[in-house]
């Protein structure tokens, strides 16, 4: 906490100076009235265009009470829809395939429920692209409700997640995703945690009773709007965490959210980043850059409405990372409705209040380093530490409708010949060289046998027989897809060295 003390000292000295300055020079107080235009935008009907998830091109598989969702995933092919009917399912569902849709069917108010009975780790893990997960109640897991690992083009919506351990919804390393209309509670870290992602919209969710409501961490281009974050320890967070392979967190718009009464006692796990968040934190920006906060209602958060900081103030004791820049830079604070924040701040904030001769904690507090930040109409709020902020040139973020991409992230289009080449070198070349004997016969020998007959090669490598006494029998390569088998057989017949 040395850093905290140092920062505090600097803040105290600055504050005293500024206070004295203000006493002498005064300050303009042309405070405009708030513009109450919140929550007047209705939901869009074409939510997931541009993502591609949920586009069903295959068959529909139904999972009824007593059935297994994982079995259905095992049977499913890309493009299939799995419909899960009401019932309680005790499973960890993993999706290592592309374009799979999991859709709960809610009948007469009865939900399909994934229940980990506090014995299972995660409810749903996905690594495939184009995954859709909707209408499922998930509860009693130890790890995550829904965790994505590098799946792009995901849609996670209308799920009801109660006490699923560390995170509720956690897409990690995904590009182009939508998280909307979920309700999450009872999560010991972040209810919605966007980790190391790009191009994400997080909207119309309700998060309450969690340590952190919504957390955007080491992600780029995220739009967080129309969410209701209440009764958490911290409502909405944007972080850059050091020591991760992605070293930046930037361009996040947090707008039109209702961030209310986030005064829950912190129940985060020891050592976790969020365990350091003081209760009563409405929004927290830590070491993230190019963040715009606009048109939110931020009220009743007892520590501070909006906190902008580096690691030190937050008391986070992570090892530092020479490649992660620790300051919050270029924070744009546009008009927000803020009231009744700072009723019961933590000691560090109280110390600052003393220097400001204020009896109440701040709507907005900025501590630590950072450059290029601005604020519109600061006189509307109780602020600590933003006096050096410029006046913003921007007035609104209307031009940004979404950070989703126009089209789904497409996997690289691998020409068949190229696929054949990659498989030949990645798999076959361990045993076959062009004109020398390795474990198996040389490729030019194989070419002589199977000239113009790729199907002959396919038939053999899927189900090899012991043909040559002076060579070991080849292990079957039946795990390769039909397309890959064809590509590699054709490639093998084409090579010349």
């Amino acid at each position: 906490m040395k850093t905290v003390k140092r920062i505090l000292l600097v803040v105290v000295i600055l504050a005293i100076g500024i206070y004295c300055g203000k006493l002498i020079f005064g300050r303009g107080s042309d405070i405009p009235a708030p513009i109450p235009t919140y929550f007047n935008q209705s939901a869009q009907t074409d939510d997931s265009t541009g993502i591609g998830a949920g586009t069903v091109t295959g068959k529909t598989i139904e999972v009824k009470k007593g059935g297994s969702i994982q079995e259905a995933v095992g049977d499913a092919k890309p493009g299939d829809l799995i419909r899960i009917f009401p019932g309680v399912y005790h499973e960890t569902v993993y999706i290592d395939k592309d374009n799979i849709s999991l859709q709960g069917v809610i009948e007469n108010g009865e939900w399909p429920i994934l229940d980990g009975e506090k014995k299972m780790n995660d409810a749903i893990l996905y690594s495939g692209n184009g995954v859709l997960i909707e209408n499922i109640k998930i509860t009693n897991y130890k790890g995550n409700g829904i965790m994505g690992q590098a799946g792009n083009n995901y849609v996670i919506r209308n799920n009801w997640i109660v006490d699923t351990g560390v995170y509720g919804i956690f897409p990690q390393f995904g590009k182009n995703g939508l998280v909307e209309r979920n309700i999450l509670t009872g999560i010991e870290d972040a209810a919605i945690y966007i980790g190391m992602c790009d191009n994400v919209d997080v909207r119309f969710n309700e998060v309450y009773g969690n340590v952190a409501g919504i957390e955007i961490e080491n992600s780029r281009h995220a739009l967080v709007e129309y969410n209701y974050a209440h009764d958490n320890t911290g409502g909405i967070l944007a972080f850059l965490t050091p020591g991760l392979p992605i070293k930046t967190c930037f361009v996040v718009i947090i707008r039109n959210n209702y961030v209310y009464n986030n005064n829950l006692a912190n129940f985060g796990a020891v050592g976790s980043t969020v365990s350091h968040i003081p209760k009563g934190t409405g929004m927290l920006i830590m070491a993230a850059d190019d963040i715009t906060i606009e048109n939110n209602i931020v009220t009743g958060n007892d520590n501070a409405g909006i906190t902008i900081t580096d690691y030190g103030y937050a008391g986070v004791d992570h090892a530092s990372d020479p490649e992660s820049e620790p300051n919050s830079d270029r924070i744009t604070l546009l008009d927000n409705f803020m009231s009744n924040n700072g009723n019961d701040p933590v000691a560090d904030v109280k110390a600052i209040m003393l220097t400001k001769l204020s009896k109440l904690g701040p709507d907005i507090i900025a501590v630590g380093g950072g450059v290029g930040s601005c604020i519109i109409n600061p006189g509307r709020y109780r602020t600590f530490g933003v006096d050096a902020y410029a006046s913003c040139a921007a007035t609104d973020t209307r031009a940004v409708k979404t950070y989703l991409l126009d089209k789904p992230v497409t996997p690289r289009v691998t020409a068949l010949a190229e696929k054949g080449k990659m498989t030949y070198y990645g798999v076959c070349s361990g045993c076959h060289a062009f004109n020398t004997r390795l474990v198996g016969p040389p490729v030019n020998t194989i070419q002589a046998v199977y000239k113009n007959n790729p199907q002959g090669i396919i038939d053999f490598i899927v189900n090899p027989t012991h043909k040559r006494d002076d060579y070991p029998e080849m292990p079957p390569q039946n795990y390769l897809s039909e397309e890959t088998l064809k590509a590699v057989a054709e490639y093998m017949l084409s090579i010349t060295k």
Partner: protein
Amino acid sequence: MNRAVILLTLICTVVLIARTWNAASKESELTLCAACPPGFELTDDNICKLRTVYQQYESVEGNDPGVGGLKTPLPPVRDGFTPQQIDLGRYLFFDPVLSKDGTVSCASCHQPAKGFSDGLKTSVGIHNSKLKRAAPSLWNVAFYKKFFWDARATTLEEQMTGPLYSPDEMGTTREQLVTTLNDIDRYQELFQQAFPASESDQIELNEIYTALTAFESSLISLNSRYDQYAHGYAGALNKQEIEGLNIFRSFVARCAECHTPPLFTNQQVAVIGLAEPAGSVFDPGAQETFNEPTLRGAFKVPSLRNIDRTAPYTHSGRFSSLREMIGFYTAGRGHEVAKNEKLHIHWHIWEPNLTNYEMDRLVDFVKTLTDEGFMPLSPEKLPSGIAIDPITISQTLSSIQQ
């Protein structure tokens, strides 16, 4: 399957030896292998380019490569060497002539049969000097951005100057290294073949570095049963191994957060709070590299590829089995940290309370990361004339086939 380089290099070696014998005393007919190692395509301009199935997942607009998930691309690879440079690097790698007194080769501590590690808690250098840390595996170093446990080197060329010139490891000097190799006619000849465009008629230091880098970069292991599963063949892993995979990537165990596929390392440094073996002083690790107190006790996250071959584990060889290593992570955050140490332990080190069953499944899973199909063969005979140390000889084809 996939014993490529073994046979390929065997052939090259046999040809080489045969030629040597045929030419009787005429040593100038040594020929370096003109074919690329397995996994590499020979281009028209005599360059070996890596081709892997993971390359089909590269996307122009996708995420940063190499950061997690089953079908994600690898980080940029260090390739583009000629077959001759790679083969020359193989001779140098196994040749103790590179050390001060001709007793220690790179392969002494990076033994092929032990996952290019040495099976010791901490390595032993020249004159039986006991070294501070364990020898890391060399598989897939072509993808790494940082080298050494404390991440103090950023290229293989920079890395190798550590052991080469450390008085406790190979103990040579730049001058001695260059002079020694230039005094060996066979090496003169081989360097000529590997660096035909060189204007100097002497072996240059950077050519030695390039050749060793070329060889080390050819050690590719990306075709394990896990990889077959990742590429879409669900049957590649059995039920218990898939259970292990799901525990591995779950947010309870959190293994995959740092041992991130497809390399099974996120290439960061992390403080996990290990105590040193009894009697050893605390190793500050990356604190010294970055002159950063909060990195005290931080070490590079090692890849888990071929981890079954590289026991004992950690920078100080603390754990002799995978099961013990995994047990460390569930024994409590900071349970080994001395009272007088203030460490900034990584946030993913927590108390996952894994069951014995779960830990056994994790062992099952990480053992599916074994793939030595592209194992190179150690040379039968070294250009220096020094006898090859038997412990550095790679597994023979017949032993792998068992």
